[in-house]
């Protein structure tokens, strides 16, 4: 078994034009920064990106949008990105907006080997248009189909050479779900350890779902909304 790649460039080298990608992260938290940079450098285009958000103008998926590498976004919220808005209004970019829980669970279904889920999210709204509605008990549910993605790009805190992953705090978000959902899953980690270094009790994603893993570098971990409590100055009244 050799899942370990030297870097993002090598791990993503065979992603072709027109590929469908899952990208982990919520906002800019827990995004696969190294993989996104490698895609920017490779110039691969016409991508369909399944990602909760679309980054900001100059970071995250925003970097791919700037270079017109994305054909379609499948997301739940895309509000922080002016370039996104421009491309959408000009018709250069296609977007499919879906509820966040539906997005997460359609990834989960793929990894669980289930073709679809029923969810009440979107019943009676435009999200329901063209979808099968089924009543269970006294409530209506929409049939939502599991995603198919050629590659999933995820970011973990720690990983081992077998591809086992541990995530940290809320940077977990959609990462383990997308890790389960990709035909080929590429994980970048802050710390790559030899197999046996991680307590099996602590593993969030078992390595069977992870095909390639590499030690990431240079993480910026940009904060979108820096909200703090000011320390009281003890010398003032």
């Amino acid at each position, binding site marked *: 078994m050799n899942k370990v790649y030297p870097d993002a460039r090598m791990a993503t080298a065979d992603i072709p034009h027109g590929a469908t990608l899952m990208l982990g992260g919520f906002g800019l938290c*827990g995004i696969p920064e190294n993989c996104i940079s490698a895609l920017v450098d490779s110039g691969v285009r016409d991508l369909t990106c399944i990602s909760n958000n679309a980054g900001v103008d100059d970071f995250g998926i925003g970097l791919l949008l700037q270079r017109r590498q994305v054909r379609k976004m499948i997301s739940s919220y895309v509000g922080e990105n002016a370039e996104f808005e421009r491309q*959408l209004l000009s018709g250069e970019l296609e977007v499919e907006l879906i509820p966040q829980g539906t997005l997460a669970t359609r990834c989960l279904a793929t990894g669980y080997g289930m073709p679809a889920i029923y969810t009440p999210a979107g019943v009676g709204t435009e999200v329901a248009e063209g979808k099968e509605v089924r009543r269970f008990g006294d409530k209506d549910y929409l049939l939502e189909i599991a995603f198919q993605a050629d590659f999933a790009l995820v970011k973990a805190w720690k990983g081992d050479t077998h591809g086992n992953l541990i995530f940290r705090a809320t940077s977990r978000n959609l990462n383990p779900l997308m890790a389960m959902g990709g035909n080929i899953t590429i994980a970048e980690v802050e710390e790559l350890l030899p197999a046996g270094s991680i307590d099996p009790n602590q593993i969030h994603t078992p390595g069977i779902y992870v095909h390639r893993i590499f030690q990431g570098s240079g993480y910026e971990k940009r904060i979108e909304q820096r*909200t*703090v409590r000011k320390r009281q100055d003890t010398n003032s009244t």
Partner: protein
Amino acid sequence: MLDKHGIARRIARQLRDGYYVNLGIGIPTLVANYIPEGMQVVLQSENGLLGMGPFPWEGEEDPDLINAGKQTITTLPGSSFFDSALSFGMIRAGKVDLTVLGAMEVSDRGDIANWKIPGKMVKGMGGAMDLVASARNIIVAMQHTNKAGESKLLPECTLPLTGQSCVKQVVSELGFFDIDPRGFVLRERAPGVSVEEIVTKTAGRLVVEGEIPEMHLD
């Protein structure tokens, strides 16, 4: 009339010890500031956290620890992290006791519109559709009228819906309302607001039964 803090304070009076609560962005977030002393309420953030704490002290921000509004936050004793599917799983399964959301419009059948204005850039629904479709109890915190003075409590929403027949209660700057099959049922007037003003400013079906007490905020 209530300001946004007053609306949040009145909603906080609906909290009970041991509640798991999801607070939306805007006025709902302020509810956290008015949790009664001695009451334990666990805040859920749908990106994957139970037990959301206050903003970090300056210099202690952790980019891996944010809430659903992408703000830096902290954990509390008893907090837990999980993935987004589990997060919406607990919402869908009805484990969250109370959801507080903002709205652009609410209908007298409990429909809610809060994600899209035709002709304006669409940002997306985020987790709002999941929350309104599944929450056991939804309180909406909203302005009673728009800038032109037109009612936002309507017989029928004019904007694209976020969810159908889901809102149970509304708190606006004018009053506290239950929604039942008869429509908006006025329960309390905001301080200094008359029943007549509420009648005038409510376009949806409004039920006024007997004397309507003035609201207490504490």
